[in-house]
């Protein structure tokens, strides 16, 4: 990994309005073209960490951030940063699929249209390419004008993935994307991740240790706001260095 990291977190601490400390002194580098997994027990700060990367935490008033969050070497929280452009570069898929109350096609063109893309041909191109990348094109290409809510849960989630891809981002963040899905849909999503990492930086909060072990190139264990250990996927799950990591990975607590 001689290349530069996509994201760098430099001594990042994050406190909520009511004084609760969500993250404590995190130093982390996330590299492009690989899957970085951030895992750990519930309430440990993983989702908070993820949302720092595209400033979705801005929606919560009264937060306090220390340290720096860098994207391609530039501080994401610097004054004057266009947060909307940032969110187009760094897309996010949430745990519960939320199709917008529109047709499938409109769901996909929503982001690009907001960004100012009007050209019909270009939009059609984006719709097809993003659906293909999310492994959904074959299933919906004939019904693009139907309401997105009519899709099954697994399809909806892949639609949400396609939605972020339609903006041609640089990084894709996924927050427990398969938590509500059946094993087949889960497998499809995990397979897509392998394709995705070839073009994007992928950061995922898995919903189980097993999923973490399946997909991770680089794994980060976060416990109660603290970065306990990180390392290459195979090594971290088979031979963790920290006792706490080992306890969590082997299921002694969770």
């Amino acid at each position, binding site marked *: 990994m001689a290349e530069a990291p996509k994201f760098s977190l430099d001594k990042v601490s994050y406190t909520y309005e009511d004084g609760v400390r969500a993250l404590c002194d995190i130093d982390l580098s996330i590299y492009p073209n690989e899957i970085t997994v951030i895992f750990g027990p519930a309430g440990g700060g993983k989702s908070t960490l993820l949302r720092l990367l*595209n400033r*979705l935490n801005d*929606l919560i*008033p009264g937060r306090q951030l220390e340290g720096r969050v860098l994207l391609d070497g530039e501080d994401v929280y610097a004054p004057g940063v266009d947060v*909307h*452009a940032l*969110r*187009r570069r760094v*897309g*996010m898929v*949430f745990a*519960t699929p*939320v199709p*917008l*109350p*529109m047709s499938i096609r409109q769901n996909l063109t*929503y*982001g690009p249209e*907001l*960004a100012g893309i009007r050209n019909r041909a270009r939009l059609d191109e984006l719709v097809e390419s993003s659906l293909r990348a999310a492994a959904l094109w074959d299933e919906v290409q004939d019904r693009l004008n139907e*309401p997105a*809510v009519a899709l099954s849960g697994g399809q909806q989630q892949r639609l*949400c993935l396609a*939605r*972020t891809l339609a*903006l041609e981002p640089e990084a894709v963040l996924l927050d427990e994307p398969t938590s509500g899905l059946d094993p087949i849909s889960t497998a499809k999503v995990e397979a897509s991740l392998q394709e995705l990492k070839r073009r994007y930086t992928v950061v995922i909060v898995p919903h189980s240790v097993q999923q973490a072990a399946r997909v991770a190139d680089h794994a980060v264990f976060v416990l109660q706001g603290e970065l306990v250990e990180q390392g290459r996927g195979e090594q971290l799950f088979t031979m963790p260095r920290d006792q706490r990591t080992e306890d969590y990975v082997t299921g002694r607590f969770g």
Partner: protein
Amino acid sequence: MSRQLRQRLGFALLGITTALVVLPILLLVGYIVVQGASAISWEFIVAMPRDGMRAGGLWPAVVGTVLLTLGTAVFAVPVGVAVAIYLAEYAQDTLLTRVIRLAIVNLAGVPSVVYGLFGLGLFVIFLQFGASILAGSLTLAIMTLPVIISTAEEALRAVPQSFRIVSLSLGGTRWQTVRRVVLPQALPGVLTGVILGLERAAGETAPILFTVAAFFLPRLPKSIFDQTMALPYHLFVISTQVPEMPVRIQYGTALVLLVFVLSMNVVAAITRSRFRAKRQW
């Protein structure tokens, strides 16, 4: 007395009480329908009045009420919906926001006749619009604001937060989110609120007493600076101040006003149920 028996009696009592509320209204409306139906004809609605309002039709009053309702809508809907958007989508929990909400509650509580005085003082006299459709509409509009604001805000808040988060995560600004996702989804609820608010404005008499209403004006208004007849005021005058007014015509006028107002109720109810059926969330 056993507990079960007491319960049955209790429930029956509640039912009777409710009937005491419901039945007189049914009777009232029924009575007006029965007494007034004989006066209703196409001519009654679209013809001009004759013989000092004792015969002929109600057309100027109908037109006047329609114009006032439209005028109210023109002023109250944009402002009301904008305030609702502010409260639902932009406002933080600051002192200013609380004062605004307090002001809305108070505007809702001001008696309609006090609105009439206010309209007289500000629009008719101070701004020199004179007694006019303009003054009347503006007065009614301010009176209708609280209803529109509160129902519109409820409708906006009912839209799931997840849509907003998704829109923002796709790079949307707050306004883009409101305009493209939240507002379209809230529109039926907003519309219902607007219709109910306008319904009330159409039926009000006190605010228009000093600001626009005229009784003996058997011609149609030509501009917004004209006075006009209006159905509620018309009913009031013909039932209290015109000697030898045929009772049939009084009931007929009451019926026309009732139908005008209640049909808006029906439209609102239809809008609301279609909204529920077509919702995609």
